[in-house]
């Protein structure tokens, strides 16, 4: 899979809900490297996520999946390479043909278009479910408080938690917390949602309710990057499966191919390991 060419001067400065610029990808990852000190975690990732596409990312522990997602929204700053959101350079600007990091302020105004779901939810414990969802619409997007709370109610209803809106996270089960976190991301009206093992921290009996919500979102045609160990789920939901090992993409393709008929030995042994465990 080759990287789409970096869109140049034609791209106007980002405004919310900018047009889709033809068939450009929603997210483009170009020649991405990430080191932590001397540890090379990502070693040249090229990946483009088309509009509405659901890309599952699988791979062994420590292969760099989380780091990849965190580089997409610049929670980690890439060591080399670039990210584009809707064809627009992300986290950086071109100054005299050179890439320069954005200010935190500019970065925040780009990041608000990307939703992220963490393995351990990271709900804010001092806010109710409703406030967790409403705070970004109010403080980041500038909605009046009342409208933000109404939007929160709508989003909580989407994840089937309308009746829990006044509960603090502490009082919610893991599955419910993760669904609130999904509602929180939905309230950003994100162009793409990044899921980092959304069900790995859950008790087995709670996994289903979260996967169901994610499937519903997938059915709405949302663009998603999904790191998961749930192979069956990946097979059902994803348009494409990407297998990562040691910081490189080993193989990728439709789920039926990558999961049923993997062409690389590393993919095969990873999958058989996973099927044995789970």
């Amino acid at each position, binding site marked *: 899979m080759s990287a789409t060419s970096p869109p140049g001067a034609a791209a106007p400065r980002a405004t919310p809900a900018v047009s889709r610029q033809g068939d450009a990808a929603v997210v483009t990852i170009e020649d991405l490297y990430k080191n932590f000190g001397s540890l090379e975690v990502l070693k040249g990732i090229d990946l483009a996520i088309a509009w509405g596409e659901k890309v599952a990312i699988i791979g062994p522990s420590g292969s760099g999946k989380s780091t990849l997602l965190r580089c997409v*929204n610049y929670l980690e700053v890439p060591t080399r390479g670039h990210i584009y959101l809707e064809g627009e350079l992300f986290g950086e600007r071109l100054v005299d043909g050179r890439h320069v990091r954005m200010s935190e302020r500019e970065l925040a*105004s780009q*990041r608000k278009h*990307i939703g992220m779901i*963490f393995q351990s939810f*990271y709900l804010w414990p*001092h806010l109710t479910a409703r406030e967790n969802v409403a705070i970004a619409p109010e*403080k*980041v997007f500038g909605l009046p408080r009342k409208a933000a709370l109404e939007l929160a109610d709508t989003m909580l209803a989407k994840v089937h938690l309308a009746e829990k809106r006044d509960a603090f996270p502490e009082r919610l089960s893991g599955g419910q917390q993760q669904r609130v976190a999904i509602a929180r991301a939905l309230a950003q009206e994100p162009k793409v949602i990044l899921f980092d093992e959304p069900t790995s921290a859950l008790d087995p009996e709670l996994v289903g309710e979260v996967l169901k919500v994610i499937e519903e979102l997938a059915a709405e045609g949302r663009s998603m990057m999904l790191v998961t160990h749930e192979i069956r789920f990946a097979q059902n939901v994803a348009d494409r499966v990407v297998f990562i090992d040691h910081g490189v993409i080993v193989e990728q393709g439709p789920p039926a191919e990558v999961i049923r008929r993997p062409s690389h030995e590393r993919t095969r042994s990873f999958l058989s390991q996973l099927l044995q465990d789970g």
Partner: protein
Amino acid sequence: MFAAVLLGGAVVSVWIMLGAFSVAVVVGLFMALVASTRNRPLRFLVTCYVEVFRNVPALTQLFIIYFGLAQIGLRLQPIPAAIIGLGLGGGALLTEVFRAGIEALHHGQREAALAVGMTPLMAVRHIILPQAWRIVLPPLGNYSMSLLKETSVASAIAAPEIMFYARQLVTRTFETPLIYSMTAFLYLAMCLPIGRLVARLERGSRSWQ
């Protein structure tokens, strides 16, 4: 009669305490936030500040600010000098308190805030501080009470607070036991409500656990 004089001093003590407390909170919060950034030179400066002020007695600090600065032409009135001196000392203490409060939070709290598009400053304001507040409230209460007692050192630079008047009255009237017990009673009467207030704030801050 003694009571009126001492009460006048008590008012000044409370002013010094409130002033120093405000200085300490602002300085401490600022230093703690600086300490949580990645800027190494700035962090080093914060460490220097904390170590210097934490390891020099309040009385010495006051003398430096009051007498020492006067030597180089910066002459402060006793009350402002006491407020600044005690405030900077308290700021060092509160830097540590706030830093501990912020560090007690999981880094994911901040990351989730950044991920929804908050700036780092918004994350501090809406996510970090409201949670750290609950952690720092008890030490903050303890600090304010010990600060009120510590204002007595300001008598050494002739700030007209309780101890200053108490000593004056004693030298004039030799009613030592009476005057110092009244003084003690006044400190007690001022400290107890602070403890109550803090306990109330702790209960009043929304419980989420």
